[in-house]
């Protein structure tokens, strides 16, 4: 029997009174795929990620992650997934090593010192293992947050702006690390990003959101072709401005 999709979302809604943050979206992400969740500010990306993580309860709709219903069976799913965002912090006064040790224990990681050493080398953070997290630069914090997200070698990794605050060189290395991890582990990655070249490089699948609804899906190449544009940046602008595929911008 084929494995259940990594993410299966059906008619998902999150309403705050009259505000429809997510309004009846449905999509499937197969295992081993890297998928981007795109849209302008307020399109519903963060709300969708929070719903998938169980940080938000849906108004209605169904979420299945790795074959398990969320949030009902969150205890079965959460140990197998992880999340990284520059907008969610780690304790500032704890050192990097202490933070990672605490989270490694929370995720039930075995052989913690070895795992930390491997991540330290891979993400080039071992030089500041003994420094308080709060004393790091924004870019260093993003790398530590990514190390935290990879601690349990997740089958499903959700990333919110994974390369925000990183210089181009470090951002490129991070993309390389994510690609290697995805290839090595067969994990599924869902990332929200505003960096369209990153999406073109990393993603097999794109879901475009606008005012809480899905307005386009497909592979990056397919969307570029459908909208008659030269890259995802232009496709993004078309969709954010409500232009349908095939329409010509005056």
């Amino acid at each position, binding site marked *: 029997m084929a494995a259940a999709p990594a993410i299966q979302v059906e008619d998902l809604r999150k309403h705050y009174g009259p505000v429809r943050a997510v309004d009846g979206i449905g999509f499937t992400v197969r295992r081993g795929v890297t998928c981007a969740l795109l849209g302008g500010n307020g399109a519903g990306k963060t709300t969708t990620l929070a719903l998938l993580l169980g940080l938000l309860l849906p108004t209605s709709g169904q979420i299945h992650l790795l074959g398990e219903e969320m*949030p009902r069976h969150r205890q079965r799913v*959460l140990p197998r997934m992880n*999340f990284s965002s520059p907008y*969610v912090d*780690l304790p500032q006064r*704890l*050192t990097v090593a*202490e933070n990672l040790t605490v989270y490694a*224990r*929370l995720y039930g990681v075995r052989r913690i010192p070895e795992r930390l050493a491997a991540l330290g080398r891979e993400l080039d953070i071992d030089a500041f293992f003994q420094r308080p997290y709060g004393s790091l630069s924004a870019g260093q914090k993003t790398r530590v947050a990514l190390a935290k997200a990879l601690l349990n070698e997740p089958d499903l990794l959700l990333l919110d702006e994974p390369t925000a605050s990183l210089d181009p060189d470090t951002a490129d290395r991070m993309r390389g690390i994510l690609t290697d991890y995805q290839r090595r582990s067969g994990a599924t990655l869902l990332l929200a990003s505003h960096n369209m070249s990153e999406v073109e490089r990393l993603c097999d699948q794109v879901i475009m959101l606008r005012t809480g609804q899905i307005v386009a899906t497909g592979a990056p190449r397919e969307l570029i072709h459908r909208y008659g544009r030269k890259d995802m940046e232009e496709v993004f602008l078309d969709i954010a401005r409500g232009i349908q595929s095939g329409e010509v911008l005056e």
Partner: protein
Amino acid sequence: MSGISFYRIGALALRYLYLLRSSRVRIVELAYWPTVQMILWGFITQYLARHSDLLNQAAGLLLSGVLLWDVLFRSQLGLSVVFFEELHARNLAQLLISPLRPIELILALMAVSLARTLIGVGIAVGLAIPFYGFNLFMLGLPLIGFFINLLLMGWAIGLLVAALVLRHGMGAESIAWAAIFALAPLCGIYYPIATLPDWLQPLAWILPASYMFEGMRAVLLDHAARLDYLLYALLLNIGYLGLGIGVFLATVHNARERGSLLQSGE
């Protein structure tokens, strides 16, 4: 309670231990206020003992009161303030998307509160011996019952305060300090409940701490261990702690509905 992992509880307790270890000021602060209180009330006791038959008979009356009061105060503060650390650090969302269950978060907070109370009050209790020749352990076995009941009541209040701050934001943080002082006059720390006006006494008797301070006076003045007081307090504490846990869990659930966990912070 199935599925509760003591390993995860230990992991979170380790996080608070790291935090404590990172700052000597925090360790000193744990013992500072209980010690200052003990010294102050020790002098008051010495002065009053010369003028009061009651204090002459039972010199430890005020000092026992202040040290036991600190058990209640420190256990409440030890739980709620440590929870606020997560909000200040914007770390709560990270914790709640990890395999940690909300009930495990509560149990970790309780464990840390116990450790902080033992350190803070323990040092003051130890110093009272050379300073005033006063040994709190002279209360004997009932002291264990007093300690447990005051700890449980502190946790119940601490959870309610934590829930309030989770619901209304860090602006409500000052309630953590104020909440327990609102109850202090009713608990009969330094005077019998009978001293209170008749209309206030029923209110005092629904507080587990009132039984503990009455029990403390029974030991010191009448040399009697009031097991009935310990039992009443324990039953009340089971109710209050159940309420505190229920309200905290319901508030976490409500925060998931309102979407406030991602924004929780200063």
